[in-house]
Structures are given as structure tokens and as C-alpha cells.
């Protein structure tokens, strides 16, 4: 096993995440894309913690923190979705203005 394989898998996940962010209009899918990117970063961290000149647990700890933080983020994101759903219940989604430059 070599570290390059793992970081390349992680790079592929980042690419998929960016693709999803650019293409998908649905907020839930956007959330998925962000989670995929965070996971790619975590995979990178763990790979580097295994293949590292210095024995250090910092990589695994960072990954643990990042997972906890992502959970906190998702909770707020889902609350925003529920709020949006309530606001747009009677309204057509098309009224949701597009991102203006």
C-alpha cells in the first residue's frame, strides 16, 4: 500500500464534491456535496497520519474534530431546510431567486 493511492481517491472525492456544488440546485444535494468534500479531507488526514515521518496523533485528532464539526454544521443546515420548506409551502420554488452575481 502506498499513500498516493489514498490521496488520489481523496482527490477524486473532492472533484465529485465540486461537481455537485456547481451543478446541483437542490439544497440537500448541495449538502451531500459538502459532506463528500469534508470526507475527502478526513481521508487525507488519516492517510497522512499513517504515512508520516513523525509519529503524531494530530491527524487522527483533527479528523475526529472535523467529524464532530460536520455533524454540528449538518444540524443547522437541515434546520434551514425545514424552515425553507415551511416558508415555501404554498409558494412555488421558482420564486427562490437565483444566485445573483
Amino acid at each position, binding site marked *: 500500500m502506498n499513500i*498516493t493511492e489514498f490521496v*488520489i481517491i481523496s482527490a477524486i472525492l473532492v472533484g465529485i464534491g465540486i461537481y455537485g456544488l456547481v451543478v446541483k440546485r437542490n439544497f440537500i*444535494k448541495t449538502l451531500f456535496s459538502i459532506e463528500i468534500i469534508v470526507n475527502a479531507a478526513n*481521508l487525507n488526514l*488519516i492517510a497522512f497520519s499513517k504515512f508520516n515521518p513523525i509519529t503524531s496523533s494530530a491527524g487522527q485528532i483533527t479528523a*475526529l474534530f472535523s*467529524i464532530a464539526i460536520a455533524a454540528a454544521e449538518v444540524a*443547522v443546515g437541515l434546520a434551514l431546510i425545514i424552515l425553507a420548506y415551511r416558508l415555501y409551502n404554498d409558494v412555488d420554488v421558482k420564486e427562490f431567486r437565483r444566485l445573483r452575481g
Partner: protein
Amino acid sequence: MTDAIFIAVSVLTVGSAILALEFKELIYGAIALAASLLGVAMFFVMLDASFVAMFQVTVYVGAVVVLVIFTIMLVRREAWLQVKDGSRKVLGAILGLSIILALGALYLQSGLSTLQTKENSISIKQLSEEMLTYYSPALIVVGLTLAGSVIGALILSKREKGEEE
């Protein structure tokens, strides 16, 4: 043998990440996302980080994805959930691919492959010691972050008085 496992897990992770975004039905997308996250957890096991893998499974698959699925079922409404993709599909694909190629090329030609595996893996004891000594302020801050997100999420999803069903 390890190579075969590696390839299988890679296919699972990457394939279900793509499926998570491409499934028309969001519920299936969420399940595919769970599969992809499980794949990442398997990578963690391969990399001798079994505690992080366990954490990944419990928090991500057990909590986050389940929460997402509940939300999807709560807001289940055809018109709301099926927003069409923008016309930027090609642009997105090109951007994603070029990021993959750029990062891949960079990693391949850099000296990463010379990095060697350590003999001894990191024990949970070491992890918890570091977390409670050097990283203790960060641990408190993460606790506060979770508190803030719980308070915030509660207030956002709570119905106000006088707000009808």
C-alpha cells in the same frame, strides 16, 4: 489480496458518491451517501485508525445520514424536492475533472510516495491523552460549537406562537 480489497472499497466509495448526487430520488441519494461514508470508514480501518473509523460510522452514518433521511421524509413534496439541474452540467463536470486531474498529477509527481509507514500505530490512549492535554481548549470550543448548533437548530425549526399548521 490487500490490493483487491482496496480496489473494491475505492469503487464502493467513489461510485456511491457519484450515485448520491445523481439519483433522482433523494432518499436513495442519502442511502448512497451512507454507503460512500462507510467506504471511507473502511479506508480508515485499512490505515490503522480504527477509532476514527468507529467515530465515522456512529456519527456520520448513524447520526448525520439518519437525520438527513428524516428531514427528506419530513419535507417530502415532489415539487420541492425535484429542482432541475442547472444548465451548468458540462461546466461542473469539466471543473470537477480538471480538479481531479490537477490534484492527481500534483500528488503523483511530488515526493509523497517516498513517505514511509510507521511501525507502531497510534493507540486510543495516546489519542485521548493528546486530546485532553494539548488540544483541551479546542475540545471545549467544539463542545461550545455543538451547543450553539443545537440551540440554533432548535430555534429555527420551532414553530412560533400564532403560526398556523
